[in-house]
């Protein structure tokens, strides 16, 4: 009897919890992280949730929904730990959603940043990485955003939604970035984010007190890397071509000129692309096959008659022209920068491993800029919305 009692008392010892437990109120939940390189050391900014401000139950005060903590150090870990001199708790990176890298830090090389995130046992692989274009990462993380109280969440959602619906952006997660950086046949490409308007107002609550926030973020352009260093930007059309070739394009819109400053709106509903590689006379050749389904959504020229099949064929040809220009521009810009962001090399490795073994060291600088790319683009316009020709005269 005593024995049983003793054993049950001992079992109670096991209920006290784990050794390394951290209660919820001991965590500093980081949603967004920004890395800048400044005067020879890293400046790390953590956008941290202020739980009392976003909860629906507590009375809301005047504090911002998130706070920014910054740390400085020669290594990222040093910077992260130095934050504890200002912050009341230690950071917890398990809920990280967005990782902003300042342009200067990106030009210097992002190897160590990716390495530290992959090595850490708290971070997961599902956060998105973006580059701050023309500004510092800390400025991006200091914005008050309308609609969504948490700016990092807002940015992440915007990135993922625009990837699906607008095209010139891609949402890259850590594991995709790691895979791209590890392979010799493809280079990394990350979306760039800009802050529009003045950052000074953006930091204050006044930003969301106006109808049109004076300071907003906007994703624009895709950054091309060579190795782990940023070397150039793609403009909007070239970015579209990039997402098209890499099969990241889900839905977007194409504007087709049909008159003086009038454009017909075509919505792409789905787009699939395949890259095939060939070796012809010892030289690599790539065939990009894009198959797109589209709808007509906007008809601003009244002389375009949507009841005739020939019109549809004409529009298909024009759309194809537009897509082809985008894609060709993207490829020529990438060749100019000598950066194989499309992954032609990786595809070559998969299809022709023996050839790849010979050329892999010279792919970036010799073979890729001279590669011959053929395009096989098929556009199918299926619907014209719910009306045929509108009767508006």
């Amino acid at each position, binding site marked *: 009897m005593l024995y049983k009692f003793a054993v049950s008392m001992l079992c109670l010892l096991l209920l006290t919890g*784990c*050794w390394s437990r951290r209660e919820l109120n001991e965590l500093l939940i980081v949603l967004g992280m920004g890395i800048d390189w400044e005067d020879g050391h890293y400046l790390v900014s953590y956008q941290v949730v202020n739980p009392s401000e976003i909860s629906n139950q507590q009375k809301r005060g005047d504090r911002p929904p998130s706070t920014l903590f910054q740390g400085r150090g020669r290594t990222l870990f040093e910077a992260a730990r130095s934050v504890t001199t200002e912050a009341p708790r230690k950071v917890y990176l398990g809920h990280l959603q967005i990782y902003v890298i300042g342009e200067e830090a990106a030009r210097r090389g992002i190897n160590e940043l990716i390495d530290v995130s992959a090595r850490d*046992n708290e971070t997961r692989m599902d956060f998105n990485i973006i580059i701050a274009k023309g500004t510092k990462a800390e400025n991006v993380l200091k914005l008050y955003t309308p609609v969504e109280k948490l700016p990092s969440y807002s940015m992440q959602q915007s990135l993922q939604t625009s990837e699906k619906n607008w095209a010139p952006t891609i949402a890259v997660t850590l*594991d995709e970035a790691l895979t791209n950086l*590890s392979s010799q046949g493809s280079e990394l490409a990350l979306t760039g984010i800009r802050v529009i308007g003045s950052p000074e107002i953006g930091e204050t609550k006044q930003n969301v007190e106006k109808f049109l926030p004076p300071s907003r973020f906007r994703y624009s352009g895709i950054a091309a890397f060579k190795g782990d260093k940023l070397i150039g930007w793609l403009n909007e059309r070239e970015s579209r071509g990039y997402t098209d070739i890499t099969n990241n394009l889900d839905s977007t819109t194409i504007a087709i000129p049909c008159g003086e400053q009038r454009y017909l709106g075509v919505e792409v509903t789905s787009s699939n692309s395949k890259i095939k590689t060939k070796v012809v006379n010892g030289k690599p050749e790539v065939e990009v096959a894009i198959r797109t389904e589209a709808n007509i959504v906007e008809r601003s020229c009244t002389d375009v008659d949507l009841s005739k099949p020939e019109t549809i064929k004409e529009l298909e040809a024009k759309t194809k022209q537009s897509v082809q220009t985008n894609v060709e521009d993207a490829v020529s810009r990438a060749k100019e920068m000598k950066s194989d962001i499309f992954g032609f090399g990786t595809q070559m490795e*998969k*299809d022709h*491993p023996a050839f790849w073994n010979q050329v892999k060291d010279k792919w970036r600088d010799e073979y890729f800029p001279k590669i011959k790319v053929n395009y096989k683009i098929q556009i199918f316009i299926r619907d014209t919305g719910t009306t045929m020709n509108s009767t508006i005269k």
Partner: protein
Amino acid sequence: MSIYKNSKISVRQFCILIMIGTVGDSILVMPTITAVSSKQDAWLSMLLAFIGGLITGGLFAAIANKLQRVSLYEAIRQRLGVWFGGFFFLLFLFASFMCCLTLLSEMIQFMTTQLMPETPVTAIIIFFAAVIIIAYRYGIESYARMGELLFPVFMGLFVMLVVFLLPQVDWPNVQPIMAKGFFSIISGAYPAYCTGFVEMAVLLMLVPYVTGKGKLTKPILTGFTVGGMVLFLVVLLSVLVLGPSLMETKYYPTFVLAQKIMIGHFFERIEAVMAFLWVITVFYKTLLHFFTITTGLAQVFQLKESKMLTIPLGMILLVGTVVGTPNIVVYNVILIEYYPWFDITFFLALPIVFLILLLAIKKKQQKTQQPPQQQPQQPQQN
């Protein structure tokens, strides 16, 4: 002299113990080890190891059938005598002891790397070893039954892992197939084969406790097949979902796989539940090896009891683990470079020697049995 002479485990429980033991700690580390050598052909390495494992399973089954429910030590002692038999058997036990050390090292490294980084190593070992000692003291019957109970849990979690990751499979990740040549596939298969299949030679210690008198080929081969299939699926899934570079980089790819499960934005972050999967498998394999050492020692020294040896052995194992793993890099080098040879020597070559002994010296055993039968009759004739 069998301890628990009256404990019996059913053939099905025997099979399940082998299955869970084969999966063991290979499920945690094999994807990385095979990927280092063969990159995207890691699944081919695992397949090769699996085929090798089945052949080895045949060898173990042959020995098990020859034993006919006599314990391994008894069979050797009858043929080689006390001293030689004891020496060979002690070699077997030594290998099992080292294997226990590797398993405990794997366990604590996983815990301190992924789940509880600040916990001191000794605390984790004490808790883990305590459970193993308690399980052993309850007897083989109880933990075999527990294995039978846990097996559906294990299978359920595993099927869940596979099914929920299917949407994230990216088939081009296996290309280019066999581009690195056959040799890299073999060098990836070698550690996988040794750790997964050869180390299960300790199933021979369980043979005396299995009910019935029939042949044990079917349960052994079934156990190896199912265990091998699980390992193969894990490696294949790692290649398909994570890709070769991520598989090679991260230490515990199966944990990363569990992290990647995301169904409709509500069924995610369940990797701690998945961790239960391999805690079960590592626990059972460690238990099997611990059982081998303890019962083996009791048999060698002709003891009637083996329960009292558990705590001292636990202490020695603890010291061995802490001393043997100063850091993960040293441990990894030894595990990949030298340990497979050790496994082959003690867990493959030694059983082959045992089999030859069992087959060759069969006649000697029959001769020595005949005279004692004749002697009682002689006085009567006179």
